[in-house]
């Protein structure tokens, strides 16, 4: 059980984590218990399979995208990373624009969920993939593709218009949008819809 020490954060670590995440000690303890409950193999870290084991997550149509984005650069998550990730979805603190849970960080995660090939833009194909996943066999392929095209095109146009560019240089279809355009498209989404409501 050499990993036991990493499971129980000590007092100093807790203070640091509190500072960085804005979570209270009680909340951190609860999350610690949760982390341990999920860590069936007692490795001190969570793997993809540990999360896939959660039934409610398993039936979530976007679970694979979520997990892909979560485990983007790594195979396992330790407690600190776990907590930091969850803290990202705390409701925005008005007075701290650069904190871990700023709006941009939340949108960045959503962007990453779409951006499967990690090229920094969301392409029509990627929106199409997401739609396919959300609809399963209930969507007609041609309709779904055309919806994906429309979305990307409109989002790009929207962003260009908002930035004072009246006309696109090439008159054809735009097939990808970058993060600022995505942010713009999501401007009407309230923080409430992007956040997790932690009870104290």
């Amino acid at each position, binding site marked *: 059980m050499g990993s036991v020490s990493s*499971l129980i954060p000590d007092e100093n670590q807790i203070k640091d984590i509190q500072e960085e995440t804005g979570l209270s000690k009680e909340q951190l303890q609860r999350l610690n218990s949760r982390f341990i409950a999920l860590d069936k193999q007692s490795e001190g870290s969570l793997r993809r399979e540990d999360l896939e084991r959660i*039934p409610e997550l398993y039936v979530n149509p976007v679970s694979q995208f979520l997990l892909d984005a979560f485990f983007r650069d790594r195979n396992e998550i330790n407690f600190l990373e776990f907590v930091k990730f969850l803290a990202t979805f705390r409701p925005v603190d008005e007075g701290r624009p650069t904190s871990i849970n700023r709006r941009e960080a939340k949108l960045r995660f959503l962007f990453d969920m779409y951006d499967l090939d990690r090229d920094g833009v969301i392409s029509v194909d990627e929106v199409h993939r997401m739609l396919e996943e959300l609809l399963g066999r209930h969507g007609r392929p041609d309709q779904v593709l055309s919806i994906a095209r429309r979305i990307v095109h409109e989002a790009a146009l929207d962003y260009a218009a908002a930035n004072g560019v009246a006309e696109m240089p090439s008159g054809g279809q735009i097939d990808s949008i970058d993060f600022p355009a995505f942010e713009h498209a999501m401007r009407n989404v309230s923080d409430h819809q992007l956040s997790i409501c932690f009870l104290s």
Partner: protein
Amino acid sequence: SLRLQPLEAFYWAVQLIGRLVGLVLLVATLLAVFNFSFGIRRLYIRILLHLFEQAVEKRRPPSRKESSDNLSRDNRLIQRHAKLTTEGIELLHADCASSDDPSKASTSSQKRPFHLSDLCVFVQSGIESIIEDEVTKRFAAEDLASWNLLTRTNKYQFISSRLTCYWVLGCFLRYCILFPFRMLLALTAVLYLVIGSLIIALLPWPGLRRYLNSILTPTAFRLFARAFSAVLRFHDVENMPQNNGICVANHTSPIDVVVLGCRQVFSIVGQSHGGFTGFMQKTLHRTSPHIWFERSESSDASVVKRKLEEHVSTPGLPPVLIFPEGTCINNTSVMMFRKGGFEAGGVVYPVAIKYDPRFADCFWNSSACGMVTYLFMMMTSWAIVADVWYLPPQIQQEGESSRQIAGRGGLVDLQWDGNLKRSKPKSSLQEQHREAFRKRIYGLSVTDQMEGSGAG
């Protein structure tokens, strides 16, 4: 002669202890045979519970319920926005933020074009379920209130010196006092079973063999149960599985067989193993038919199915015991079995077993430790406290027995979980959510005008 006396006294003491132990074992065996109990184990459990509460600082007041069917504490960490349940997407209005958001829930029945932000509700639900979900919560809830002084479950308590002291005492009690005695009991049980089965197997009359076995096997299992200091509570006994039925139970631990076997004779379905497990399998098989299949056969669903059908249609045979989630049964076999196996007309008896995690951590990580190690861990835990619910029998339809079992608090999703991991096409629940989502999106039904810009 002065030298001899201590030696004599020593021998005399050993003999006395030996006789005492032998006497206790005999009494235990007799008690098991006649299914009588002095209530010592129950008393022990009560004392333990009392001790746990005294010894450990409580985080929050535990609910004082007798049965281990402890209900979920209402202490949630988060306020859920969206839940994916068997009924679909449940959108919950949460106004934890100062501004009240006119949530999309109110417009969920209207169709509207897809927007990139439609992802949000699923992401929210997904992340929320990572933090807290009904299933894992129920089991974790029981751990939160107090630590049960077992190293293997202490992962998060900050240990004080007082606790450490209790822990050391507990260790001594469990490893040095309880364990040797339990080991002896277990050996007695094995001996009893082996010798008994050898004798019975020699008798020429099948009827008599069956009758004697119906006494031998349950009593041997009861003796085994005592070796774990098991306190078992059986509910709804009128629904107990009958001959030629199929008993479907959720699988937590190899001990399940012992727990259920205390009351009646089963024909166990399982993969044949070597070693100690294999030895026990052979012993049991001497006096009663079981369905063991080879590893190679387990991938052949029809073989399993055929054997099951044969068994169920031969009158007078004990009910079959199946653990759909057991790792010894290959996935496809179970799938096939669930779909077609009940055409044989077998009545299905769902059984739910729940272990109280305060007394032992019954989860068996088969890749981490073998059977013998696992049994050792069980025998050095405080006790095994389990509740067994016999659910009403039914004629199986696909997926139905799982839902039945799902009705019992705390077990919902053990069975659900097993189902989810089993099916190769994504579960019907996922399809349900997709269908619900599709209904909200304009442009995706056959009758709607085709969406999209002309340039596409």
